[in-house]
């Protein structure tokens, strides 16, 4: 029993040290970062954060990233919910094949799809827009959302659907009044996964944008100029990018365990 806790404590220290180190760096001046190794900021400064909050480019990046993440989550959910319902409730010949094909998209390496995406979105006139990034991320988020939601929906007995219809509920009334509230945990978990992926992805969002949209992940690496890295600002921006994720985790913490088992607990 004791050994178990020692192992856990050691692991959590390993988990937290790099995060602490970034937090620590974000409150230091660049002079301190580049010259000495200190475990606490010797000269505590919020300058790095102030620089980010007052720079319009950082502000724009944060807002635009939020915008395409939210567009992506909305599209993913609207598209996945009906599909997951069908996958769970109906039987048709092509079902297993269709389901497997959807999952193979989750395996697609982003690097392999860069050029076709460039061509596709240029032809659609969507290059360098929020929609290009949001749609590109659907390639990964829709299959995962359907996978998770299908698990959650299958956990709800069919009799509930049937009882509702017998009670004279029309399909849409049943869907919105009874069905969606029942799978609320599944909805929040799949939205969480979509949010996460879209927020952390870099390769595609960078390729599909140039001057019009600047994903936060791109602005972060922009600071790697010829004059070397502006470590303090990068660390502060890194800390700021962790906050939305932390807030989302906090909001869905009760559903998280269930969601990680993809609803089949």
């Amino acid at each position, binding site marked *: 029993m004791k050994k178990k806790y020692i192992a856990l404590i050691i692991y959590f220290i390993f988990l937290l040290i790099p995060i602490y180190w970034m937090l620590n760096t974000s409150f230091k001046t660049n002079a301190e970062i580049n010259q000495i190794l200190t475990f606490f900021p010797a000269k505590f400064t919020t300058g790095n954060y102030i620089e980010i909050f007052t720079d319009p480019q950082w502000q724009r990046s944060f807002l635009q990233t939020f915008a395409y993440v939210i567009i992506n989550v909305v599209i993913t959910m609207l598209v996945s919910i009906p599909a997951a319902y069908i996958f769970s409730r109906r039987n048709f010949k092509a079902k297993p094949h269709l389901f497997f094909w959807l999952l193979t998209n*989750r395996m697609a*390496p982003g690097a392999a*799809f860069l050029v*076709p995406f460039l061509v596709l979105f240029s032809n659609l006139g969507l290059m360098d827009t929020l929609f290009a990034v949001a749609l590109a991320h659907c390639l990964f988020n829709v299959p995962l959302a359907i996978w998770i939601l299908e698990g959650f929906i299958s956990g709800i007995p069919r009799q509930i659907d049937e009882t509702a219809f017998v009670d004279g509920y029309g399909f849409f009334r049943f869907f919105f009044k009874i069905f969606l509230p029942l799978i609320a945990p599944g909805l929040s978990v799949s939205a969480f996964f979509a949010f996460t992926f879209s927020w952390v992805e870099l390769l595609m969002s960078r390729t599909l944008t140039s001057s019009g949209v600047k994903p936060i*992940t791109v602005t972060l690496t922009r600071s790697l100029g010829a004059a070397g890295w502006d470590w303090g600002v990068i660390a502060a921006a890194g800390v700021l990018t962790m906050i939305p994720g*932390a807030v989302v*985790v906090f909001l869905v913490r009760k559903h998280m365990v269930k969601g990680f088992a993809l609803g089949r607990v």
Partner: protein
Amino acid sequence: MKTEALAGKRRETSTVLFLLPTLIVMVGVGIVPLMTVVNYSLHILFSGTLPHFNGLQNYYQALRDPAFMNAIGKQFLFTALILVIQMPLGVALGMALPEKGAWVGVALVLLGIPLLIPWNVVGIIWRIFTRPDIGVVTKVLAKIGIMYNVAKLPSHAWWTTVIMDTWHWTPLIILLTFAGLRAIPPEFYLAARVDSASRWAVFRYVTLPKLKHVLVIAVLLRVMDSFRIYDEVFILTAGGPGSTTLFMSHYTTRQVVGGFDMGYGSAISVIYFLIIQVMCYLLYTAMMKVGQKQ
């Protein structure tokens, strides 16, 4: 009879209607780009010139490209390594987490953090942490006589990448294990205790089979995502020193974005995609078989 047939028709129609949005989106962002890549891969395609049909030549060339083969070999080694490290570690820690208590909630949120950090920020965290001049890892290791240098020594770059990935993704396996364990009814353990089974036997014959579904998901997700690894390594080592940490995604990106012949880059992309699919399929069927024998 007639009404039944009509109802069946209506069900079919609604099935198609409900699947339609997904199909439109996934054909648009999945099939159309994939077909584009396959089409490119059969041509010689220099920008500014007309495409020239080349049959399977690009594929022959790719399979004889030592740099590409090198990236594939490294990718397989990396994926095997992280599975061997992360799966047992994640399962053990997931089992060690207590079932209830105030700390469990805190632990779950903390475990979520690495999964929610943008991938290039993961790279930045580890770059700050291991920088050769005054990184804390460098300094601490120097104290015990190890001249650590992630930018110059290939083995150090390689192991730092493996450790970074372990830091980044083990929480996913811990969370999956933790979630999977909650699904095992306590009676199973009671029965095992009555039979005075050894701890290993309990794990092997009670816990493991019940965790199977969740572990299959964990392995598949880790394989898919480790084959996709790009941003964090790019920031940490930029593929170096030399090409020590140049993985498949880096090589492919170089060919399709920075290369001259898009046809060749596309052939590499197709091979890359096929490798992941075949790997996942084989792993999936193998793992499902293991369960059936029990």
